[in-house]
């Protein structure tokens, strides 16, 4: 599927022209291709996440949008309808929140925030007023005179945010801004960022490697791998309808069972796996030949247990199993179940569940995705050997 078609399908607000166009961006570092012919758009007011593991090209794409990196080849970059391909970062109407914040160490909090206004020649009093306003916004109202090294990690994060917001850009670019914070703070900041986004109605482009962050905050996610877009869409799509085995794995699907495609009727695909016929939602391209190796992706929390065949819901996939290892995870148990085609993981929330006469695992066909092994847009990834 061509990438620009995907982009149009995924755009949520169709009425307004996108605030950002990136067309056919390619970037190389020496022999390494960091970004391979990628095109994306962002709608005004959208929270768009560029998701991917390190080396996927997500940060390079962000830096190209910011103007910090000059792409090797580019069709067009347009912000607010104006082509900015030849315009340096300093004159693009977008600002970046850097991964390590890059707060100037020789300036106070106030001076840092006012910097963008100072270089634009805004008068001192006006500058101060706006800086104080934006400090209020990020909930640091009394830190104006602090020095940067007196701040905690979370406070630095907010100052970096305030500094980027004060110039009122069309697009706010965030490069893994929560990466340096500890777990608790990260969760709090996710909520706060989301609130801020709604309050301001600004376009956020957010780079992260964490699928959890992406799912929590985004309107739309673009998943990158090896410099290419592998899937894009709303969080639910990526979570429940992974377009390839890679996406399913990246989005944290625990059970990835490889088999061969038998048929696709409507939405439902039937997969042949060690003598069993499993049914699930088909997430691959329309015209796929029967016999193609595919992957059945089921999340552990969707796997149910039964003692006899009558325990299943109509039309569900049911497989005989033996009980395997149990891992205590605090809130739940991770239970491994041995089946004909290898171990299947199930999540057990009720600690009193009796596992002694367990005979079947099962899941609804709607809780299960069937994806091609290679997938859309992935280069150089052959089908994995089927075990």
């Amino acid at each position: 599927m061509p990438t620009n078609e995907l982009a149009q399908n995924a755009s949520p607000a169709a009425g307004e022209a996108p605030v950002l166009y990136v067309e056919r961006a390619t970037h190389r570092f020496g022999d390494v291709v960091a970004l391979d012919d990628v095109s994306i758009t962002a709608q005004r007011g959208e929270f768009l996440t560029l998701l991917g593991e390190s080396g996927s090209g997500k940060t390079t794409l962000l830096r190209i949008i910011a103007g910090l990196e000059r792409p090797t080849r580019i069709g067009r970059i347009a912000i607010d309808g104006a082509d900015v391909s030849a315009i340096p970062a300093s004159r693009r109407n977008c600002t970046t929140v850097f991964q390590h914040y890059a707060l100037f160490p020789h300036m106070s909090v106030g001076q840092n925030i006012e910097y963008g206004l100072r270089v634009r020649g805004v008068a001192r009093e006006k500058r101060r007023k706006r800086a104080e306003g934006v400090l209020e916004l990020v909930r640091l109202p009394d830190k104006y005179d602090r020095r940067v090294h007196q701040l905690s990690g979370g406070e630095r994060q907010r100052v970096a945010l305030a500094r980027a917001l004060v110039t009122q850009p069309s697009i706010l670019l965030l490069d893994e801004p929560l990466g340096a914070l500890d777990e608790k703070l990260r969760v709090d900041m996710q909520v706060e960022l989301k609130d801020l986004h709604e309050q301001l109605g600004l376009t956020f482009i957010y780079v992260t490697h964490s699928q959890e962050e992406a799912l929590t905050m985004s309107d739309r996610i673009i998943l990158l791998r090896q410099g290419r877009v592998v899937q894009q869409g709303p969080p639910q799509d990526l979570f429940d309808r992974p377009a390839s085995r890679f996406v399913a794995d990246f989005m944290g699907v625990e059970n990835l069972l490889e088999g061969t495609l038998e048929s696709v009727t409507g939405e439902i695909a039937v997969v042949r796996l060690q003598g069993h016929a499993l049914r699930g939602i088909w997430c691959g391209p329309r015209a796929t030949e029967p016999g193609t190796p595919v992957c059945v992706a089921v999340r552990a929390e969707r796997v149910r247990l039964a003692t006899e065949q009558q325990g299943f819901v109509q039309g569900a996939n049911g497989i005989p199993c033996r009980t395997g290892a149990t891992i205590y995870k605090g809130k739940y148990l991770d239970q491994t179940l041995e089946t004909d085609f290898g171990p299947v993981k199930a999540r057990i929330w009720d600690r009193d569940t009796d596992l002694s006469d367990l005979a079947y695992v099962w899941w609804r066909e709607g809780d299960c995705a069937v994806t091609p092994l290679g997938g859309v847009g992935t280069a150089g990834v052959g089908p994995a050997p089927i075990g």
Partner: protein
Amino acid sequence: MTAAAYTSNRSSGLRDFIPRLPAGVWSLSGFSLLWFGGIVLPLLAIIVVSFLQGRGLKINFDPTILQYKRFFSYGGGEMLARSVRIAGTVTMIELLLAFPFALWLAKGCKNNTVRLLTFTALTVPFFLSPAARVIVWRSVFGINGVVNQILLGVGIVDEPVLWLIFSEFSVHFGFIGAFFPTMVWPIFLSVSLIDNDFLEASGDLGASRLRTLLHIILPLALPGIVAGFVFTFIPMLGDAVVASHMGGNNVLMLAAQVQSLIGVSNFLVAAALAAVVLAIMLAFQVLLWLALKPVGGLAGVFASLRR
């Protein structure tokens, strides 16, 4: 608990009265005592000696400002003013030449071979005999030197150009080459320490290259600029070789004056001169300290570089 009990059992008698410090602290204290007693104290003692009277190696402990009067009546003031003026001028020229060069070396130059060669070229001169570096200029710039031969031969001038050597021009010229590395190195090191993120953030927030230079690079490179200034100005002020080889008797500077005073056993006047120089150095450092105060002093600048 057990460890504490063990220690208290072992230590008894005299051992209780000696603080239990690591061996390193003891040896540092010993060395510091020798250094401060043998070096720092004697250097500061010049100031006391300069207020004494005496002849030759004999001195009386009888305070006076006679030595200062004699020093200034010999034209010492003029000589000092000249030394500070020449060293100051050349240091400023070095700063202007070295800053763009150091900036380029630290942030612009991507070719590793060029960098390595330039580093080596900037390191080697520190270890060359001072005389070896300037001696040839006399043959080049002298009355019968290469330059004059060429100028006469081509017919640009009718008689040899005399100001090429033993003049203030030649002293400035000799200094510029000799003291370039001492200015480049500290600036290079401090600019290298500036995170590229800061430069990118500045540009991203809308600053032009000039703005970034003024607001970000210059303040963050300040420790290096100050260090370069100190390492260039101070040795240049006391340089014995360039001034005597390139200036001859026409451009008398500090070193030559000290030597001639010692040469005629006029020790106490030399002490007065040394004391004046020490006072200038002290004033210089106070000025630097004041200049750095707005950014939290030198220590503050260094602290802010750490992330």
